């Protein structure tokens, strides 16, 4: 029933959201706020739903955390806020909180009949934006919109910090027309900004300074570069400035890196989980979180680091994953992980993780992104831990990460690993598609991961959503590269951003736009919330939306196509950074997040998550897997044992690459070299 309702309301929401114009939205705000309620107690659920409806919110209810996650993933920008019970039979509420934070970066309110201090504290450390004691009164629900606005506001701020000339979050621009009003004021502001940005974008996208605060989408590739840089410097010594220099990504600012670093650190910390309470986290808060995470995140059993260390996972891959994770692409793949077994994703060696196909390619980073892919089949928790460690240090550095960071980042990072990267990728399909690090190519790694990605990609393509013409799932499925290819292909097919991911998101169609816009951002990954923007704009111009991605090459028209190329990674990244501001953009972030998420959590789960992030489409699958497996932080088992034949994955990847090849060539990214793309 819940699902049904949810769906119904979701579609309703979607429609409503889509139809709402920025102005209309602002007038009604906070009415129409899209809330997802999760509680296993049917009585409470019914009461909450009624109360929320009375507050004029659009409510979707579900009684299982897994269902909630898949709903969120499928509909990446479909919700503005989540309310979840703490004690649930299938998944701990805090775990769900983490996942949401990592993957979708939505504000989450916890609630429970338990009002003990420790539980409330747990909520705080996990990043819940509020904690309600049952019985919940309607008065308490009336003001939940503040959390949404606050989050968006913070995101903007972050974006601004990161970009030099940011005008404003692209997201805002993208606006939210579709969004529910929370951004009412923002919306209008954004709209104007958008126009401005669009123009500017067209002109000087290459210039990082022009990027207006678009959130950087940490695509797989970008993340890989990031991780490589961090590894090079040494996790403890990795400072944003140096990392930025090493990465040498135009358009990326120190702030972007700093915040990503912080997330990464959290992620690593999570990976190492209990094993190491990283103390690197300079951020005390993070530190405390860590402890918590350590214990909690059972999921992040996968130790990306370990995996990476294992040699399989190229730093980049990990980076990608992490990026994905950190990025928190809100975008939900929308498409449930397709068939590919999540596990497979990881086990797959991803050499070609084509995350975000287009993007990855450009992402220039020469390092193949495949974070996920890189992960060796056995995603050893240790490896992840390593990664985790480095992440932690990084994370410690940066603070910017919003509160969500605690929850999300580590998770994000971890997720990717465990989850098949493919998933992540596929999910994104759209530009967002996590651009799984092209490094997927690393044979060793990621057996599972790559598979995962591939699978995801493929699936994502399919699943994606009605909106886009997903890239033939098949192609994408198998190899991560698929993501890219799928993205690429998607782009081709779709006028907009083609990336499947994008389209899916759009339930409103906006996604496409976002995607393209995201892609647009050229070189710089300035935080653009591609997805966000796209979604918001739904029907329009990419230009505005993607502040960050300005690939010089593509422009509107190209966006779609070009976008893909532009930098899958960018998209992905953006996804993360953008965080669901508008909800819609989530997709993008999701992708990023997916990457991370893949890494963490139980082996399978991680991969799934990661993949999911990457590949919005595939998200679902990944999610499922994840939830089922109890994250076993310490377990060193392979994430995806044998699920996916490496050979299969490899071939899939190869196929994808081939497929992608042509498409890739179409895009020209001047900003990013195509080195990353494993060919």
């Amino acid at each position: 029933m819940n699902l049904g309702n949810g769906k119904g309301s979701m579609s309703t929401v979607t429609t409503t959201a889509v139809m709402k114009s920025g102005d209309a939205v602002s007038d009604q705000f906070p009415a129409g706020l899209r809330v997802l309620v999760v509680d296993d107690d049917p009585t409470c659920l019914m009461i909450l739903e009624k109360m929320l409806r009375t507050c004029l919110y659009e409510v979707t209810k579900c009684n299982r955390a897994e269902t909630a996650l898949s709903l969120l993933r499928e509909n990446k920008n479909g919700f503005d806020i989540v309310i979840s019970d703490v004690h649930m039979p299938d998944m701990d509420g805090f775990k769900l909180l983490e996942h949401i934070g990592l993957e979708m970066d939505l504000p989450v309110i916890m609630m429970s009949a338990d009002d003990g201090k420790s539980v409330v504290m747990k909520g705080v450390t996990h990043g819940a934006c509020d904690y309600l004691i049952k019985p919940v009164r309607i008065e308490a629900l009336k003001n939940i919109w503040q959390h949404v606005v606050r989050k968006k506001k913070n995101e903007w701020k972050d974006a601004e910090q990161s970009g030099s000339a940011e005008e404003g979050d692209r997201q805002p621009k993208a606006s939210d027309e579709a969004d529910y009003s929370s951004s009412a004021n923002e919306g209008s502001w954004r709209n104007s900004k958008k126009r401005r940005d669009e123009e500017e974008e067209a002109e000087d996208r290459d210039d990082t300074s022009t990027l207006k605060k678009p959130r950087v989408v940490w695509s797989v590739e970008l993340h890989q570069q990031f991780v490589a840089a961090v590894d090079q410097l040494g996790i403890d010594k990795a400072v944003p400035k140096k990392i930025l220099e090493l990465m040498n990504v135009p358009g990326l600012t120190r702030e972007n890196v700093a915040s990503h670093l912080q997330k990464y650190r959290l992620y690593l910390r999570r990976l190492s989980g209990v094993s190491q309470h990283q103390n690197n986290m300079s951020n005390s808060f993070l530190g405390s979180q860590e402890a918590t995470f350590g214990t909690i995140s059972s999921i992040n059993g996968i130790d990306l680091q370990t995996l990476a260390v294992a040699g399989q996972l190229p730093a980049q891959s990990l980076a990608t994953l992490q990026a994905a994770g950190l990025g928190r692409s809100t975008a939900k793949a929308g498409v449930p992980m397709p068939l590919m077994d999540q596990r497979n994703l990881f086990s797959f060696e991803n050499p070609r993780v084509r995350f975000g196909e287009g993007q990855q390619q450009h992402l220039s980073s020469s390092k193949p992104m495949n974070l996920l892919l890189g992960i060796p089949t056995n995603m050893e928790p240790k490896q992840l831990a390593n990664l985790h460690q480095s992440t932690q240090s990084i994370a410690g550095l940066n603070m910017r990460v919003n509160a969500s960071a605690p929850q999300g980042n580590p998770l994000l990072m971890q997720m990717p690993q465990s989850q098949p990267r493919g998933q992540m990728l596929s999910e994104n399909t759209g530009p967002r598609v996590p651009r799984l690090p092209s490094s997927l190519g690393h044979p060793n790694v990621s057996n599972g991961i790559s598979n995962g990605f591939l699978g995801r990609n493929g699936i994502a393509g399919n699943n994606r959503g009605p909106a886009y013409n997903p890239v033939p799932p098949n192609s994408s499925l198998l190899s991560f590269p698929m993501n890219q290819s799928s993205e690429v292909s998607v782009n081709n097919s779709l006028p907009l951003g083609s990336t499947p991911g994008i389209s899916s998101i759009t339930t409103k169609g906006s996604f496409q736009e976002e995607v393209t816009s995201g892609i647009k951002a050229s070189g710089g990954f300035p935080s653009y919330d591609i997805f966000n923007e796209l979604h918001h704009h739904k029907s329009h111009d990419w230009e505005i939306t993607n502040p960050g991605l300005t690939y010089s090459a593509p422009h509107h028209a190209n966006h779609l196509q070009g976008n893909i190329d532009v930098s899958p990674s960018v998209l992905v990244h953006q996804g993360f950074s953008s965080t669901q501001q508008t909800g819609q953009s989530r997709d993008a972030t999701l992708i990023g997040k997916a990457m991370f998420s893949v890494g963490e959590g139980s082996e399978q789960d991680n991969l799934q998550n990661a993949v999911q992030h990457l590949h919005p489409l595939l998200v679902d699958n990944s999610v499922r897997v994840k939830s089922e497996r109890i994250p076993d932080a310490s377990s060193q088992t392979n994430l995806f044992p044998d699920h996916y034949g490496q050979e299969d994955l490899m071939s899939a990847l190869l196929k994808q690459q081939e497929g992608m090849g042509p498409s890739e060539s179409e895009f020209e990214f001047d900003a990013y070299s195509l080195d990353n793309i494993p060919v």
Partner: protein
Amino acid sequence: MDVGQMQRQWIDYTKSLFLEGFLDGQFLQLQQLQDENNPDFVVEVVSLFFEDSERLLKDLTFALDQNGVDFKKVDAHVHQLKGSSSSIGAQRVKNACIAFRNFCEEQNTDACLRCLQQVKQEYCLVKNKLETLFRLEQQIVAAGGSIPTELSFSG
């Protein structure tokens, strides 16, 4: 009995439930949520509560009947019952659950069994009371009247 009388009776009965502690303010919230669009909201929610509680009580009985009692599980069930009873305003049931949880923490099986009895008793009481109230409501509606929306405690 005419409608007016029934309505007054309804009001008095409801007030007594509050005064005796069977129901608390949360129940009022539920009543306020009920409107023309959802005229049966309270009845629906409470019915849901009954179903859910009965299941929980059964599970609790079963769990405490085991040789090796899994207190974590018992606690989880009680916690849920506490949550749902508090959500509809069944105050006495909720309080009984709170006491129950304390004994779960102590892992005191005997005390838990006693608490379970207590909870069951309170549950039966409030169930009867509410069913009576709902019957009264049905009568009012059947007679063409409407359920009073405001409970003035002044009178």
